[in-house]
């Protein structure tokens, strides 16, 4: 009883203390926020300088008639460059080719990458060796790897070309060229996919798989009904990264076909106009279109598939 009586005034003062603390806290919070901004500032400024500025500059360029061969004729033309690009069949052919390569390679990479990730995840003996070996293709410079594929498919001298019928020159035809480009892409980037997926696999608790087998799931059901849904965020990140990368494919095509026989990608078309053709206006318009497509893909992935952005995983609730 005596406790209760002496406690009462204490509680009152504690309450008032809490109130004054609140005011103080907001003061402290302000300082904290200021410090936060200050700490972020250098990074933010560098980011703006190296990404923001070029983006804005290329958007500005894309609204100009600006051909370096005729520098005197520079003028503001509004969306004329975009109309020129979007009504051109070369652009749409390149766009279709790029899309085809993107969808096919990412799909194959996902399946192979998942298999590889499962192997690496389960490997008990020589885990380090298995992982290193699996990652070798990813460690090779793309251009170097592309040249090795190029020479392999060169008639007469290439070891793969010799497997084909006499006189076959696969890199001179549309279909075979695309197949080889896709093959080179898949070979090169599957390890990356596997690595990202393996990180996702590590997030699936063992107990969950054990619970599923107790609940009567066979290996395939455990994989599709428990493992895949639980690692969905990791899968989406992996597939998104690869899709964005694949859509900007350049080096493999540049080396393997040089864009002949309609195998050129949107990035190659941009390069041809911007660097080879010195047409800064058209080239920039293409670059901006690629940027918009990539942004759209990212948006569709994040919104449409209902995954959280990387790093903002909310533990399965939505």
């Amino acid at each position, binding site marked *: 009883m005596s406790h209760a009586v002496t406690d009462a005034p204490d509680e009152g003062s504690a309450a008032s203390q809490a109130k004054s603390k609140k005011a103080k806290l907001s003061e402290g919070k302000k300082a904290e926020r200021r410090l936060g901004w200050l700490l972020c500032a250098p990074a933010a400024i560098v980011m703006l300088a190296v990404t923001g500025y070029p983006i804005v500059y290329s958007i500005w360029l894309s609204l100009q008639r600006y051909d370096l061969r005729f520098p005197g004729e520079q003028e503001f033309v509004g969306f004329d460059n975009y109309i020129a690009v979007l009504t051109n069949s070369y652009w749409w052919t390149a766009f279709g080719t790029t899309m085809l390569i993107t969808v096919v390679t990412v799909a194959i990479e996902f399946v192979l990458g998942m298999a590889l990730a499962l192997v690496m995840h389960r490997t008990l003996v020589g885990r380090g060796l298995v992982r290193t070996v699996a990652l070798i293709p990813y460690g090779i410079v793309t251009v170097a790897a592309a040249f090795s594929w190029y020479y392999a498919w060169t008639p007469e001298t290439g070891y793969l070309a010799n497997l084909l019928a006499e006189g076959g020159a696969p890199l001179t035809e549309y279909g075979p060229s695309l197949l080889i480009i896709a093959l080179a892409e898949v070979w090169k980037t599957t390890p990356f996919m596997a690595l990202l997926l393996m990180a996702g696999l590590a997030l699936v608790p063992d107990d969950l798989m054990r619970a599923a087998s*107790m*609940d*009567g799931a066979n290996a395939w059901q455990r994989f599709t009904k428990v493992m895949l849904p639980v690692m969905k965020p990791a899968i989406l990140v992996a597939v998104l990264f690869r899709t964005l990368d694949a859509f900007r494919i350049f080096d493999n095509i540049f080396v393997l076909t040089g864009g002949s026989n309609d195998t050129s990608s949107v990035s190659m078309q941009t390069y041809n106009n911007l660097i080879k053709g010195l047409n800064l206006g058209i080239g920039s318009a293409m670059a901006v279109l690629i940027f918009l497509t990539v942004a759209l893909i990212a948006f569709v992935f994040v919104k449409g598939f209902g995954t959280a952005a990387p790093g903002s995983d909310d533990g399965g609730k939505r």
Partner: protein
Amino acid sequence: MAEIVLDKVTKRYPDGAQAVSEMNIEIADGEFIILVGPSGCGKSTALNMIAGLEDISGGELRIDGQRANEKSPKDRDIAMVFQSYALYPHMSVRENMAFPLRLAKVDDATVNEKVEEAAQILDLNQHLDRRPANLSGGQRQRVAMGRAIVRSPKAFLMDEPLSNLDAKLRGQMRTSVSKLQKQLAVTTVYVTHDQTEAMTLGDRVVVLRGGHVQQIGSPQFLYEQPANLFVAGFIGSPSMNFVPGTLEDGVLKSVLGTTVLTDRVRRLVEAAGGPREVIAGIRPEHFEDVSLVDEKHREAGATFRSTVDVLESMGAEKYAYFSLDEQLTGSEELAELAADAGSADVPGSGSTIVTRLDAASAAAEGRELEVWFDPERLQLFDPKSGKNLTFDG
């Protein structure tokens, strides 16, 4: 529903370590059996072998009379509740509970009916459409139970299902698990390291140590007739007091004074061919403040005097702690028990006597107290083998 028989079941790992050695347990249909022991005693391994999550290296597991060693978990028709609950985070509570039924290709109407029924039993009706991430610990635990009971399996396996809950909730859930098991009357194997759960839940308790079964019996029997030092120390809270002593002509000499053994105890020790050096064990509740013992009993009992080190008043009773000069050494089992209780890390806690006294006791810290105990309650152990010399099973 089924009976489960472990016939010399053994688990040997590739590196030669033996997690479970020739375990023999016969679990009757509908029985609630507890596997208890300190960490690393093989209780979870044993459970996983029954579940089929770990291979059996030797011996035979029979479920309903059929050999089950080679059956995969899904063919054993056993449900399991995990310590982590292992709820599927991407499914709602309803889907979580329906999952085993969906896998068994049960039609929608039946699935719904069974899930609703289980939710009713576990009081989860309002939460069926929520995700596990939005539930409290106790609710998650109930969902895990629900997932186990929906498909009416032959048996339940529970791997420390309550250890992730806070103390109060654990107490409540303990009661409801017990009720649920009685209501469903399904064979249940329950693994825990908590001797309170073991004592309160099980029809029978299996005490394990280092992969070996120490003793199997009803909780009361294990409490009254522990087969060895390990079981004696493990069962009961606070645990049994152990003091070294010397036995001569039916008289025990120890820090508790010179105690004349009762006829029954004496006969048992002689029959067991006990050595001269023994470890005497007596439970805290078998002590009493001498002033509260009536004349008649006082005559039959023994007393000792010592200074009360620490006194804990629990309201309904008082715990008085006494320090002892003499150290107990040489018993591997006692060392393991101390390690498990964590007392090995606490300095100076090695040799105290804990007594539970009536709340009316006038005991006070730092004052001398005369404490009475009944020699009939003494248990004597062989310090080398740990065997209970007064075992009367």
